[in-house]
């Protein structure tokens, strides 16, 4: 018996060694240099993840490959949660994809370290003219354009149409959103036992508060003579104060949504517990896919303060500085992001295309239904915000702003204490 056990063990070991040998032999040497002959090969790291978006990306790449035998693009799937670590190691190790999908607020760091090419020198003027200068600014760092902004995300309000009708609240037109006062008053009307007017999903509150603070010209980050500091005045306090009031004073917003992300509020929304969800324009995708049969929802335009301004943090496509084929990569980008293709990509992700023509085509294509008219209109309110350009923002956000805002929204600290913590945090991380 002992002998047979030993034999089995030895056999397993032998199989493993042989297997490993085979793996080594078969393992593709992806790191091998390309041969000088044959088509140019480009790697495209995409973060598309929604079903339709994934399909749109793959279809476009396949179409390009069929039409351009001399420039072949390999579609490589990444994911949003780990892409930063993946890129850091790839850049450091010198083995990054030629074309990289990410977002404007995150590529500045890579651009300043010299890992991303200046796409403004590679793209044609015609192509650049399709996108507003304000949107290009979001991806411009030290006068270098680090990526092509192609998809925008705005904050709108998704509402339960039947509950609005029952409360006698009219749906505003796409270009005529409610003021904050109107939004708060309507949320109050929609509040009754077992039902809240709104659910603010504030699990990650910083980006959202800083985005919406622009409604009252709240900038948070102020630069003077090369030095940046955080200031929290009345303009910065307005939006957090209003949200806090809805939760604790008028009680028209659900306190239980504080720890939720946008999608977590959907069961309550579909169940009639919350009448309105202030959230991303991309939430519409889940409405279409997951709303119960017969559930009527509408997209309300962004809320207005002094303006409807919000921070634009577009998704971007960058070209790696290390790419041996930057010119061909730019050629692919111009084709990949032409108006028709950009509209298809935006439709797949339920986001707003940055290209003016693509935006118009998308509204035509969808007849403005499912909130596409509101989404298209909201693009005009998106602007570059000071926090997007501040070097220490990610650290300030994680270490100071998010905990402070979470404490404030949990009613643990006052508005003034919130302001003090945000300013003090700024002193720690900003130089």
């Amino acid at each position, binding site marked *: *018996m002992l002998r047979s056990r030993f034999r089995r063990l030895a056999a397993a070991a032998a199989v493993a060694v042989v*297997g490993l040998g085979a793996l080594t032999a078969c393992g*593709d040497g992806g790191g091998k240099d390309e041969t000088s002959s044959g088509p140019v090969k480009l790697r495209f790291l995409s973060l598309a*993840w929604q079903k339709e978006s994934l399909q749109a990306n793959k279809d476009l790449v396949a179409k390009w490959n069929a039409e351009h035998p001399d420039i072949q693009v390999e579609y490589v799937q990444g994911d949003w949660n780990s892409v930063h670590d993946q890129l850091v190691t790839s850049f450091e190790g010198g083995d990054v994809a030629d074309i990289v999908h990410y977002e404007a607020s995150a590529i500045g760091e890579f651009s300043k370290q010299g890992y991303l090419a200046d796409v403004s020198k590679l793209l044609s003027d015609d192509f650049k003219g399709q996108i507003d200068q304000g949107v290009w600014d979001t991806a411009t760092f030290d006068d270098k354009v680090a990526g092509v902004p192609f998809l925008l995300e705005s904050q709108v309000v998704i509402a339960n149409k039947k509950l609005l009708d029952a409360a006698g609240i009219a749906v505003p037109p796409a270009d005529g959103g409610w003021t904050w006062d109107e939004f708060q008053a309507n949320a109050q009307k929609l509040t009754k036992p077992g039902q809240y007017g709104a659910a603010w999903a504030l699990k990650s509150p910083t980006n959202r508060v800083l985005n919406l603070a622009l409604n009252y010209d709240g900038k948070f980050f102020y630069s003077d003579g090369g030095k940046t500091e955080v200031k929290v005045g009345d303009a910065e306090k307005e939006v957090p104060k209003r949200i806090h009031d809805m939760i604790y004073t008028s009680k028209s917003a659900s306190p239980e949504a504080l720890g939720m992300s946008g999608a977590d509020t959907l069961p309550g929304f579909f169940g009639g517990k919350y009448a309105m969800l202030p959230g991303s324009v991309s939430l519409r995708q889940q409405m279409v896919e997951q709303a119960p049969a017969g559930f009527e929802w509408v997209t309300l335009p962004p809320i207005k303060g002094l303006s409807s301004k919000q921070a634009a943090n577009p998704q971007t496509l960058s070209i790696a500085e290390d790419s041996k084929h930057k010119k061909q990569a730019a050629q692919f980008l111009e084709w990949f992001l032409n108006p028709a293709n950009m509209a298809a990509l935006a439709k797949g992700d339920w986001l707003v295309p940055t290209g003016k023509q693509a935006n118009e085509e998308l509204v035509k294509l969808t007849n403005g239904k499912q909130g596409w008219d509101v989404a298209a209109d909201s693009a005009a309110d998106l602007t570059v915000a000071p926090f997007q350009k501040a070097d220490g923002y990610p650290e300030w956000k994680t270490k100071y702003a998010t905990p402070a805002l979470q404490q404030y929204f949990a009613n643990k600290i006052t508005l003034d204490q919130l302001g003090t913590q945000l300013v003090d945090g700024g002193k720690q991380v900003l130089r």
Partner: protein
Amino acid sequence: MFGKPSHTGRTLQYVALTGYLIFLGFPLVWLLSTAFKPPRELVRLHPSLIPSNPTVQNFVQAFTEQQLGRAALNSLQVSLASAVLTVLVALPASYALARFRTRLGTVALGWVLLSQLFPFVLLIIPIFLILRQVGLANTHAGLVLIYVVWALPFALWMLQGFVRNIPRELEEAASVDGASRLQVLRRVVFPLLAPGIVATALFSFISAWNEFFFALVLVKTPELATLPVALARFVGIEGTARLGPLAAGSLLATLPSLIFFAVMQRRLSSGSLAGAVKG
């Protein structure tokens, strides 16, 4: 020392055990339920355990969109190779550490423990550069090498504990009976170490099967991706997930570990040494 449990005591034991099993099994049952739910059933205010309209659409999506079948096969190859190689390397080393106690051995064990404290991110770039230098970046062989190195410290600790539990007297008795050193190892030590070897292999297999970060960074070619990397693609911006396909894929991901454990668990049963030495 302990008397026979009373009828009530035994009932309470069973109740506690059943409760514990339900607690442990619930996530798996919920995963199973979610994997078969259509999108509209995933976001109900009062979710049900049994899907009203069960569907296999989540599995179809998971397999067609992210090549999960291929990814699972990749994970299986890498994990099996890692498990067997880890045991092969750890076995002689752990025997030496347990039986020949020297100052060097003590220092080596301390270092092994200390090496566990280095964070992933500190090591990943040097590892990547080294693998690239030797032509093993973007290969399963490179990944297996890293997994073996990564699992070895714990495997060594684990196995040398098992070796120490084997009474030296057994080996001495075999020697007295005329067995050579190799025969002692083959016929006495290794068979008694079987539960330890199985436990170590299981640990190495599961740690390789679940590993995400090295697989993400070291393997670039889509066809070589492992299962955890493929599954991560169902999670989008700010943690929003496509729950249905993710659950279907995750269910698939738990199966090999469960099967491997079910097959091997017999080997894990303790008590093989009971009565080996009368004292």
